[in-house]
């Protein structure tokens, strides 16, 4: 038998230039921060040092908010048509420099280049194009007098899709006439800082986009700042709750996009081979660091064994390794901290009595890695069936009837997304209608379009991003 293996096919890093140390981007330029506290940002696939970023302090936040206030004066008096032009310019620049962004995203965050190149960056550009198109049509859609921008928006984004989450936040905020103070996650700040360069290149008026780095303390300073008019947060439910508490009693707008534990329901009359693909994509996409990941596989009992056999076989072909190798399917876990959390939950799943299957892949020596993992024989009471693992770990539950599938699917505090697999159209509609989830995918998973609103039910948050609904998250009724 031949043993045909793919040779390494590494995307060159030459295209990116990373500075030794970064400043904050405030009032249209990179500026020396007041804080002296810096942390290293490393590549999670090699643990190599990439750069230093500052943990911004109160003075830095003050300065950024003040800059955004001054920026708002200008931006609000810029015609919608001009704002649209700026956004189109950003969209085109992102496309022009997309390879540079993709390499940097994979280097800094650990995701495979295949995904940053073919998913993240095309989506980033698509979001800017989409909201650029809206910028001068908002009046037509809702009437100019009734809705106004908030003013200064604080935006705090996570590390799983660093640049894409920036796009989801910045594009609609600017299109609706707001200005922003954005804080990327401390492990993945580099693409946001490169985006700041793009804002300079595009000639975005000073103070409209402000990007400051930092950790949770910086985030908290932004949330509690007296001159912030709205907060948009994507991250954990735990932090989301803290933010909501801090804002209680204040006239500050809030949208939260939080955790999830999505059910991916496979009925016995599904196209099995494609359902297997969809389930794999649903959980192993981006190492499972996806808030809408299909992390609970709900299988109809009649197809359980056949499905699991096919799924395990397919999982064995997943290629885990260097994120910059074009043939890598699964990259590195984003941080040591996240890896510890995944390991802890998986160990709990084993001691609870779940049956574990992991692929036979070899993991690199350095960096943070976790093998693609499947649990069967899981009871709904196990923590792996209830808590968001946020890693490449799939938990299988079984059901007997469609009614039971719905009960299990909705038996969670989350409600961000869900998947339904059946060839029967009426069953798709019936199921989707009963699922308490913001997004329901039918016979597919993890499909995104800037025109489609995204957001959660229950503890997965509130407010919508994307589409016409996404604009409303950045507009308020004029009293």
């Amino acid at each position, binding site marked *: *038998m*031949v*043993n*045909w*293996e*793919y*040779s*390494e*096919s590494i995307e060159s890093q030459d295209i990116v230039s990373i500075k030794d140390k970064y400043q904050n981007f405030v009032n249209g330029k990179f500026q020396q921060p007041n804080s002296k506290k810096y942390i290293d940002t490393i590549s999670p696939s090699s643990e190599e040092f990439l750069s230093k970023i500052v943990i911004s302090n109160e003075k830095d936040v003050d300065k950024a908010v003040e800059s955004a206030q001054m920026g708002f004066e200008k931006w609000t008096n810029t015609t919608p048509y001009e704002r649209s032009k700026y956004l189109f310019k950003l969209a085109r620049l992102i496309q022009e420099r997309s390879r540079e962004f993709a390499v940097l995203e994979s280097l800094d965050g650990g995701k495979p280049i*295949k995904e940053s190149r*073919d998913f993240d960056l095309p989506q980033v550009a698509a979001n800017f194009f989409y909201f650029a198109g809206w910028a001068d049509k908002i009046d037509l859609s809702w009437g100019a007098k009734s809705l106004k921008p908030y003013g200064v928006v604080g935006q705090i984004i996570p590390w799983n899709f660093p640049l894409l989450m920036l796009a989801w936040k910045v594009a609609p905020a600017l299109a609706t006439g707001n200005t922003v103070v954005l804080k990327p996650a401390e492990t993945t700040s580099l693409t946001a800082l490169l985006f700041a360069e793009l804002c300079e290149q595009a000639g975005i008026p000073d103070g409209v986009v402000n990007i400051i780095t930092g950790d949770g303390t910086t985030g908290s300073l932004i949330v509690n700042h007296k001159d912030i008019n709205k907060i948009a947060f994507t991250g954990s439910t735990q932090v989301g709750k803290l933010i909501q508490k801090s804002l209680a009693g204040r006239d500050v707008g809030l949208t939260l996009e939080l955790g999830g534990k999505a059910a991916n329901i496979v009925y016995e*009359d*599904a*196209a*099995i*081979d*494609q*359902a297997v*693909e*969809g389930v794999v*994509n649903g959980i192993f996409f981006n190492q499972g660091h996806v808030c809408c990941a299909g992390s609970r596989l709900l299988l109809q009992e009649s197809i359980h064994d056949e499905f699991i056999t096919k799924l395990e076989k397919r999982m064995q*072909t997943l290629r885990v390794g260097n994120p910059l190798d*074009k*043939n890598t399917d699964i990259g590195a876990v984003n941080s040591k901290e996240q890896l510890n959390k995944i390991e802890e939950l998986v160990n709990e799943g084993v001691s609870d009595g779940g049956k574990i299957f992991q692929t036979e892949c070899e993991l690199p020596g350095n960096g943070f890695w976790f093998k693609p993992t499947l649990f069967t024989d899981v009871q709904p009471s196990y923590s792996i069936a209830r808590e968001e693992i946020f890693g490449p770990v799939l938990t299988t539950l079984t059901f007997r009837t469609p009614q039971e599938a719905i009960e299990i699917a909705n038996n969670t505090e989350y409600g961000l997304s869900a998947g339904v697999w059946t*060839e029967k159209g009426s069953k798709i509609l019936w199921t989707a209608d009963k699922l308490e989830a913001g997004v329901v995918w039918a*016979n*597919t998973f993890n499909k995104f379009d800037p025109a489609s609103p995204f957001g959660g039910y229950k503890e997965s948050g509130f407010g919508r991003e994307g589409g016409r609904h996404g604009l409303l998250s950045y507009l308020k009724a004029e009293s």
Partner: protein
Amino acid sequence: MNNKTGVLSFNWDKTLELLKDSRIDSVGLNDRVDSLATRSIKKESKLEALNMLVSMCDLTTLEGEDTEGKISQMVAKAIVPNPNDLEIKNVAAVCVYPSLVSIAKEKIGNSSVKVAAVSSYFPSGQVPMESKLLDTKYAIDSGADEIDIVINRKAFLEGDYRKVYDEILALKEVCGDVHLKTILEVGDLRTYENIRKASLISLAAGSDFIKTSTGKLSVGSSRQACYVMAKAVLDFKNLSGLSAGIKVAGGIRDAKDAIRYLVLIKEEMGNEWLTPDLFRFGASSLLDDVLKQIKKLKTGAYQASYYFPRG
């Protein structure tokens, strides 16, 4: 389950049972096939792939204008694909019309290149069964090592699956130990469900290989069709324990496209399917591009066609 010739086949009831599950989601299938096409095959793995392509090639000429001279040229190329690079071994087979089998066989001599004949009134198959049997018998008597037949698309599209099955079964009986490749003509079947059904019927009736196309339609092979067939072969193996082969043919002209088929087979079926015994390419011009690519990998020079002897 053995028929007269001792070849494993499924009886009709069992075949009907197989056909029940033909659910395919085209969006998901297309996504998967597209994602496999992004694999980056470079350096050693590319050279290995190119050499595999040569070894899996059924060098084909199926024209009314085919003569002894043309067959001689093609056979010479099949045995020694590139006289300037003897590291490149012979192709798997030459594929010709029945009337040219004896000539091809004679020219091949002791070489391990096989002679495949298209029969059963390739490409349309629109003749009575007696004629198909005679056509096939003639090719076998002339020395064909492998027989490529076409399924009865008229019967298939009219819903008479039983007739499609019975014909293949009867032709397999004529073939005996001679390798039978059954052409589905996916360009006529159009839908993925039809391709899956036709694959399962052909496998159940005892085909050693299933093949995408005749190469005579504007719609030839596609990686999507190949994927559907691969899944059918795997499902059939699970039930019968038999490993059938797949031949893709029709419109595969360059090495890059052909390597994408190899990726698909490797990732969906495993390395054990990457052998000429289980995977073939039917093509007339693919080999030339493969030879050029090998030359380029070895020397860095992408040479003009006139450096490669024609077949």
